[in-house]
């Protein structure tokens, strides 16, 4: 039960102690690294001349953006291009942070705080889009459809979105990291025979970190764009 003994960073500011858990710290690092990378790559693309033959870098960046765009097109239709920066960033940051378990760090997404913030962010984006495309009157009217007595259910459905998104991600990544922790604890316990763990652990890492990480990153982006697409005008 090591979860209460998670390593954390303590910062002293004027006598107050600020405690930052390792997942949140990793999240900050991933975000900063990605911001720098995206700004640098954005400059490369901005300088490129569309009339000339594209350089290797530009081709790679374009193909990455096209992958995200093709996923988004099925849900958002003609609005897809506007939302590529948002969902593309979420996809890449999510996949990278899910993969951090491979190098022995704690995944940022195994912390409920990080996930809940992302879920609430989605909720705000979706509600803002709904208000913008339907207007306040249409939005309130939409909650009373198809029948007036379904209003509480509709309201609950809207509020459940951030919770269900964040708990899905949290449960998946945390269960993977707990199982890996148990495997390593078992290796320690078995002594010499613990060497057998070296054959089992990589396979489980492949499933719980790589496969699960990619699928959850994809699903998180896909569901967000799906719920956003429902609120956009056609």
């Amino acid at each position: 039960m090591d979860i209460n003994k998670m390593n954390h960073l303590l910062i002293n500011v004027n006598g107050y102690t600020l405690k930052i858990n390792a997942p949140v710290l990793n999240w900050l690092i991933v975000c900063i690294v990605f911001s720098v990378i995206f700004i640098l790559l954005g400059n490369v693309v901005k300088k490129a001349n569309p009339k000339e033959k594209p350089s290797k870098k530009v081709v790679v960046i374009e193909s990455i953006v096209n992958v995200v765009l093709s996923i988004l097109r099925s849900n958002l239709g003609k609005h897809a291009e506007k939302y590529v920066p948002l969902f593309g960033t979420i996809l890449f940051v999510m996949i990278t942070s899910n993969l951090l378990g491979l190098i022995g760090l704690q995944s940022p997404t195994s912390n409920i705080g990080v996930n809940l913030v992302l879920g609430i962010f989605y909720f705000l984006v979706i509600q803002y889009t709904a208000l913008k495309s339907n207007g306040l009157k249409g939005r309130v009217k939409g909650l009373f459809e198809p029948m007036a007595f379904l209003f509480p259910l509709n309201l609950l459905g809207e509020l459940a979105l951030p919770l269900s998104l964040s708990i899905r991600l949290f449960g998946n990544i945390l269960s993977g990291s707990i199982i890996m922790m148990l495997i390593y604890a078992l290796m320690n316990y078995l002594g010499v025979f613990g060497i057998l763990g070296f054959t089992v652990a990589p396979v489980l890492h492949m499933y719980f970190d790589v496969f699960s990480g990619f699928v959850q990153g994809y699903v998180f982006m896909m569901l967000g764009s799906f719920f956003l697409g429902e609120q956009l005008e056609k």
Partner: protein
Amino acid sequence: MNEFFVKGMALLGAGIAMVAGFGAGIGQGYAAGKGAEAVARNPEAVNEIRSTMILGIALAETTGLYSLVIAILLMFLKG
């Protein structure tokens, strides 16, 4: 009611909560089976079927994960 009774009951509750994995497993298996059927019927659409199936499976997993979160909370807060 002593401390150990609460602890034991919390751990028992965590175990019982994980019974919800039963339903999630059935749902995922059903989705995967239907996905295989769809690929057999229409092998060209395998990419679309795969992405739809993974999305459906991940959604079906949610109920199981709710119970997992409840079990984890019971274990780490009370156990």
